[in-house]
C-alpha cells in the first residue's frame, strides 16, 4: 500500500507539494514559536546587575513569555487549520481515483490505509523540511521581537534537541488527523463514481460539519459573553480564542455559505464569462470553500485583533480624558513636589511614581507564587483632587504606610482588609488593602501608598487656574505637557505597542496564510486541465478561460473576506460590550486601513496565483486534453 502511496505521490505532485509545503511551514512556525517561548522562559538574568536593571530584564522576559504564549497558540491553530483543510481538500480532489480502486476490489479499510499512509509520508517529509525551515524562522522571529523591544537585547531562541520529537509529532500528527476525517468520507466513495465524471451529487455539507459548526459557534458565543464578565487582561487572549472558534465554526459551515454568497455574484457577473464563473463557483463548492478558508483566517485575525486592540486603546484614551481633572503633566527625574506646589497658580498637584514589585498569589499546594507587576504610588489627597475617582469600597484616604488600593481588573479577588503578600525592594512584605478601585482599561490597576515611593523619576499631575502661566513656571523643573498632549502621546504609544504586538503575534502566521492561499489555488487548478480544455473546445479563447477563472477566484476572495469580517465582527462586538461593562464607555474601533490593506494583499496574491496557474493549465492545446482522459 505504501508503494501505491508513493506512486500516487509521484503523479499528483502539485497537490502533494502543496500539502508538504503547508506541513513544512506549519511545523516551522510552531517549532520556532515554541523554541522562542521556551528560551524566554528559561532565560537567566546575568548575575551582578544592579537590582533595577535586573528587574527590568526579568520584567522583559515575563512580557515576552505571555506574548510568545499567545503566538504559539496562534501558530498551532493556524497550522492545524491550514494543514487539515489542505489535506481534506487533497482527498476530495481524488474521489475518482479512489472510486477506481474500489472498482478493482479495494475495500473501505484499504482506501483509508492508503490515504493515511500518504498522510504519514507527507507528514514525515513536511516535518523534516519544517524542522530545517524552523531555524531561519526562529532567527527572524527573534530579530522581530528584539526590534520591537519585547525581549531584552541579545536574546535569541535556543535549539533544543527534544524539539525534533515535538515538531515531528506536530507535523505528522496534524497531517494524519487532517486526513482521518476526510478518509472516512473518502472510504464511502462508491465504485460507480469512477464511471461518472464528477461526484457532483456528493453532499459537501455533511452531518459532522453541522455538528462541528454548531458546537464551535455556541462555544464562541459563550466566550464572547465571558469576555464581558472577566474583562481586563484576560479579555484579549479570550477574544483571540473566540476568533479561533468562530473561524472554525465558519470553516465548517462554509459549504453552506459559499452558494449563498454566490447569489449576489450571479447578479454582479453578467455576460458569458460571468455566467461560467458563477456556475463554477456554485458547483465547485468544496474548491471554493478550501480557497476561501485561509483568506478567512487571515482577515478574521488581522481585523479582529487590530479591532480589539484599537478598541482597547480608544477606550483607554476616553477613560483617561473622562477621569483626569487636571491641565498639565510634568515629568521629572527626581522628586520636586514642594517646588511644584510653590509655583503660583497651582490649584492641586498629584505626585505619582511608578513602583515595580512582585505580587504574591496563593496558588494552594504551590504556596505563594510571585509575579512581577507595577503599581503607581500616589499621595491620596492630591490624587483625589486631580482624578475623578469613586472607590467601590474602603477609603482612598487610608492609603498610607504599608497599604494598597486595587482595581478588580487586577486579578486576585481582593477585598478591603486583605493582606497582600508582596516583594518590594527595601519595603514591607505585606500590604493592607484599604480601598477597591473601579474597573479600568487604562490603569492604574494598583495604587500604592506614598510612603512606598522611592527616589527617582516622578510624574506630577497639576490643575491650574491659568495653565499657560503655570506651564512656564514648571518648565524649569522638568518636561511639561498639557493633559491633552499627554493623553495623545499615551494613546499613540499604546497604539504603536498594539501594532507591534500584533505584528509579533501575527506576522509569521499572516505570511503562512498567504502561502496557503496560493497553495489552495494551485491545488484546485491541478484538477481542472480537462475542464479548462473543454471550455476552450466549446469556443472560449485562452484569455477568456483565464478571465473566467480569475473572476471565480475574486469571488472566492470576497467570500473569504466576508466570512473573516463576520468572525472579526463577532470578536469586536464582544470586546465593545466588555469595555462598556467595565468602564461604561461605548466604543468600537474598526481598523479600516489595515483591513483594506489585508484585502488588497489577498486579492493580489490570489489573482496572480489564479492567472498563472490557469495560464499554465491551458498551455497544452485543448484538443489533446479532451481526447486523452487518463
Amino acid at each position: 500500500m505504501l508503494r501505491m502511496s508513493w506512486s500516487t505521490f509521484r503523479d499528483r505532485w502539485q497537490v502533494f507539494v502543496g500539502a508538504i509545503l503547508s506541513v513544512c511551514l506549519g511545523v516551522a512556525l510552531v517549532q520556532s514559536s515554541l523554541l522562542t517561548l521556551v528560551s524566554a522562559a528559561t532565560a537567566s538574568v546575568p548575575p551582578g546587575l544592579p537590582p533595577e536593571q535586573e528587574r527590568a530584564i526579568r520584567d522583559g522576559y515575563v512580557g515576552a513569555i505571555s506574548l510568545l504564549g499567545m503566538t504559539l497558540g496562534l501558530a498551532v491553530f493556524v497550522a492545524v487549520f491550514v494543514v487539515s483543510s489542505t489535506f481534506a481538500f487533497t482527498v476530495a480532489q481524488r474521489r475518482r481515483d479512489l472510486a477506481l480502486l474500489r472498482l478493482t476490489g479495494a475495500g473501505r479499510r484499504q482506501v483509508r490505509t492508503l490515504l493515511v499512509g500518504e498522510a504519514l509520508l507527507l507528514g514525515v517529509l513536511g516535518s523534516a523540511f519544517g524542522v530545517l525551515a524552523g531555524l531561519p524562522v526562529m532567527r527572524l522571529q527573534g530579530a522581530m521581537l528584539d526590534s520591537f523591544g519585547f525581549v531584552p537585547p541579545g536574546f535569541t531562541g535556543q535549539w533544543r534537541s527534544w524539539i525534533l520529537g515535538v515538531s515531528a509529532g506536530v507535523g505528522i500528527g496534524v497531517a494524519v488527523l487532517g486526513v482521518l476525517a476526510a478518509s472516512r468520507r473518502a472510504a464511502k466513495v462508491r465504485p460507480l463514481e469512477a464511471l461518472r465524471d464528477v461526484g457532483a451529487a456528493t453532499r459537501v455539507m455533511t452531518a459532522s460539519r453541522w455538528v462541528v459548526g454548531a458546537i464551535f459557534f455556541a462555544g464562541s458565543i459563550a466566550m464572547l459573553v465571558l469576555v464581558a464578565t472577566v474583562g481586563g487582561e484576560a479579555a484579549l487572549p479570550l477574544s483571540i480564542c473566540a476568533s479561533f472558534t468562530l473561524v472554525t465554526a465558519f470553516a465548517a459551515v462554509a459549504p453552506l455559505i459559499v452558494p449563498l454568497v454566490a447569489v449576489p455574484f450571479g447578479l454582479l457577473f453578467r455576460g458569458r464569462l460571468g455566467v461560467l464563473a458563477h456556475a463554477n463557483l456554485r458547483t465547485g463548492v468544496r474548491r471554493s470553500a478550501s480557497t476561501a478558508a485561509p483568506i478567512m483566517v487571515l482577515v478574521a485575525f488581522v481585523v479582529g485583533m487590530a479591532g480589539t486592540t484599537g478598541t482597547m486603546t480608544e477606550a483607554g484614551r476616553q477613560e483617561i480624558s473622562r477621569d483626569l481633572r487636571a491641565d498639565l503633566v510634568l515629568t521629572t527625574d527626581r522628586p520636586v513636589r514642594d517646588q511644584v506646589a510653590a509655583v503660583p497658580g497651582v490649584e492641586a498637584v498629584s505626585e505619582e511614581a511608578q513602583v515595580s514589585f512582585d505580587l504574591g498569589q496563593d496558588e494552594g499546594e504551590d504556596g505563594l507564587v510571585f509575579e512581577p507587576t507595577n503599581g503607581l504610588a500616589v499621595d491620596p489627597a492630591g490624587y483625589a483632587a486631580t482624578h475623578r475617582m469613586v472607590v467601590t469600597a474602603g477609603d482612598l484616604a487610608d492609603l498610607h504606610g504599608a497599604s494598597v488600593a486595587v482595581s478588580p481588573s487586577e486579578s486576585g479577588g481582593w477585598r478591603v482588609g486583605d493582606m497582600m503578600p508582596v516583594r518590594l525592594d527595601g519595603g514591607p512584605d505585606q500590604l493592607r488593602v484599604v480601598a477597591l478601585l473601579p474597573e479600568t482599561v487604562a490603569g492604574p490597576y494598583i495604587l500604592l501608598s506614598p510612603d512606598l515611593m522611592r527616589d527617582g523619576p516622578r510624574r506630577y499631575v497639576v490643575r491650574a487656574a491659568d495653565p499657560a502661566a503655570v506651564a512656564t513656571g514648571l518648565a524649569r523643573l522638568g518636561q511639561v505637557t498639557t493633559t491633552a498632549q499627554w493623553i495623545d502621546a499615551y494613546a499613540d504609544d499604546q497604539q504603536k505597542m498594539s501594532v507591534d504586538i500584533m505584528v509579533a503575534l501575527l506576522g509569521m502566521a499572516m505570511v503562512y496564510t498567504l502561502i496557503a492561499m496560493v497553495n489552495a489555488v494551485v491545488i484546485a487548478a491541478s484538477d481542472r486541465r480537462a475542464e479548462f480544455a473543454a471550455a476552450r473546445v466549446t469556443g472560449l479563447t485562452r484569455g477568456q478561460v483565464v478571465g473566467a477563472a480569475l473572476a471565480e477566484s475574486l469571488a472566492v476572495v470576497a467570500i473569504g473576506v466576508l466570512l473573516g469580517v463576520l468572525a472579526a465582527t463577532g470578536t469586536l462586538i464582544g470586546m465593545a460590550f466588555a469595555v462598556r461593562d467595565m468602564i461604561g464607555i461605548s466604543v468600537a474601533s474598526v481598523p479600516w486601513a489595515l483591513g483594506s490593506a489585508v484585502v488588497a494583499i489577498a486579492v493580489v496574491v490570489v489573482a496572480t496565483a489564479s492567472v498563472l496557474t490557469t495560464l499554465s493549465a491551458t498551455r497544452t492545446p485543448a484538443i489533446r486534453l479532451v481526447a486523452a482522459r487518463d
Partner: protein
Amino acid sequence: METQATHRPLDAPETTPSAVELHGVTRVYGTRTAAVRALDNVDIGFPAGSWTAVMGPSGSGKSTLLHCAAGLERVTSGRVRVAGQDITDASDAELTRLRRTVLGFVFQSFNLIGSLTAEQNVAMPLRLAGQRPPRKVVREVLASVGLADRARHRPGELSGGQQQRVAIARAMVTRPAVLFADEPTGALDTKSARTVLRMLRGMVEGSGQTIVMVTHDPAAAAAADRVVFLGDGRVVDRLDRPTVRLVADRLARWEE
C-alpha cells in the same frame, strides 16, 4: 446449484446454469414526479461460459442493467444473483470480496490508474486481495494481450488500444467468473477493437468465463454469442448467433 436451477427465469432458453440472473429487477431514479424507470421489471439470465451483448438506444437502461448486475448499483426492487450468490442486499465488504474474486470490469474509458505502470495496474486487484502476485503471472497475462514489452509503461505512454488491453489484462488476472464490459471498443479504432474482441472471445472459449457487454457497435455485438435488445428499461428482443447485418437490422427496427 440446484437452487439456481429452480430460480432460473422461465424465458431463458439455455440449459446451462446462469452466471448472472436478474429477477424482476426495477431501478427507479429520482422520486415522485421526477422519477425515471431506468429498468422496468427485467427478468434475464446470462448463461455461464457465454458472451452476451446488451444493445439499445441511449437511455434504454443498458448501463443501469450492467451496473445493477455487477452490484455497483442497488436495485429498487427484484433480486440479483451472481455466481450462485444473491447480492441484492450484500454488504459493501461482501461486494468488495466479489469484485476481487468473481467479477471483472472493462470500461470505455479504460479506467487505469495513471500513476502506475501497466504491470502494476494489472497486479493491483491481486494486491488489493492481499496476495503478492508473482511477476511471472503478471507478465504472462500481459503477454497474452500482446503487451509483454510494455509492462513498464504508464497508461499515458500507451495508445488507446494498448490501454484497453491493459485493462483487459487487469480483468483477466483474477480469472473472474463474470466480466462486465461497458463499451469496451467505444474509444478504439477498428483494428484495436478487433484485437480486443478477439481477446474477449479467448476468455470465453479458453477458460469458460462469462461476459456481459454493453455496446452500441453492431460489429462488437456480432462477436458475442447472443444479443439482448433493451428499450425503455425492458428487454424487447433477443438474437442468438448474431451477425453484423442481423444486429444492424434489428437495431434499425427498434430505433425507428
